[in-house]
């Protein structure tokens, strides 16, 4: 959690000038977020690392073209969204190759550390498992919007900029994803 707080603080002070003058600090501040988003979308560590690497390579090559119309994080997420979209498309083409999804069974282990009772921990774990399954089954666009909003904390406008969708389309995907998740985990929440 300390790492997350540190990278969040570093990310807050990154602006257009930093992007051109000190690209290492941009990588340091935003690499965790890009990797995390790619990992949550693709569920494949190798693929997520490749996406993160390609994302920063593209960002470095086009850093002078960044006009500062949006936050640096939004701009990086825009690059990441496109890279992930390409990967998902390629994966669909490789219909004979089964995607190797990373297991997420152990996710709730550290979460339970602060829970007061085993019963609460169990409920928490069940809730989490149901949530992961529900998110995993969302259509790609809904999952992308959902993760950007609820994991990366981007607001609707930033998501629209990152995905190239209209604000209304983002809202539609967001509320549909929430409705699906509510329905799928109805008993757990």
């Amino acid at each position, binding site marked *: 959690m300390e790492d997350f707080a540190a990278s969040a603080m570093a990310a807050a002070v990154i602006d257009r000038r930093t992007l051109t003058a000190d690209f290492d600090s941009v990588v340091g501040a935003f690499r965790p977020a890009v*990797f995390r988003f790619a990992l949550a979308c693709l569920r494949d*560590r190798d693929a997520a690392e490749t996406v993160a690497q390609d994302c920063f390579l593209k960002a470095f090559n086009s850093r002078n073209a960044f006009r500062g119309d949006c936050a640096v994080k939004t701009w990086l997420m825009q690059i990441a969204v496109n890279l992930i979209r390409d990967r998902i498309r390629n994966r669909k083409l490789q219909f004979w190759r089964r995607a190797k999804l*990373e297991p997420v069974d152990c996710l709730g282990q*550290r979460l339970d550390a602060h829970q007061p009772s085993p019963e609460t921990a169990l409920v928490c774990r069940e809730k989490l498992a149901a949530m992961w399954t529900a998110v995993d089954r969302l259509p790609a666009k809904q999952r992308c919007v959902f993760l950007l909003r609820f994991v990366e904390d981007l*607001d609707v406008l930033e998501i629209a900029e990152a995905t190239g969708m209209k604000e209304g389309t983002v809202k539609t995907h967001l*509320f549909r994803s*929430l*409705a699906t998740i*509510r329905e799928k985990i109805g008993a757990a929440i």
Partner: protein
Amino acid sequence: MNDHPTSRQIDEFVAGAASPAVAGHLRECPGCRAEAERLSHSLAIFRQSVHQWSLAQERLPSQSYPGQSHRRITLRRLGWTAALAACLIAGLTLPRHRDAAPADRPRPVSDAELLVRVDRELSELAPASLEPVALQTTDGNGSEVRK
């Protein structure tokens, strides 16, 4: 707002896009607020789990430099393609060689047959004036025979 908000309106509130009326109702109504908090709590747990999972994955010792796995897959794919191409070429060319082999290979001929053939070729080449000479052939023992 007297009516309770719909599930959709609660979702909008959780997503940070609720109207002021819905937000006001949720502040006043404990039941609706509890429903919104349950959903928010689930989302918060999910968010935390993704962060922790990502950190754990990032900290795993990397067995390969970035892009190596992709390159390994590409090389393996190239290897398989080359092997397939080799099999196809072999499959296409070998039957042709097998078919062609009996026609090209000289059939074993006995000495007597060979001599008869040579005589026949010589007699065909001989001019008409020398025909009687050409009619001289050899028998199987090699002695000259006049026909």
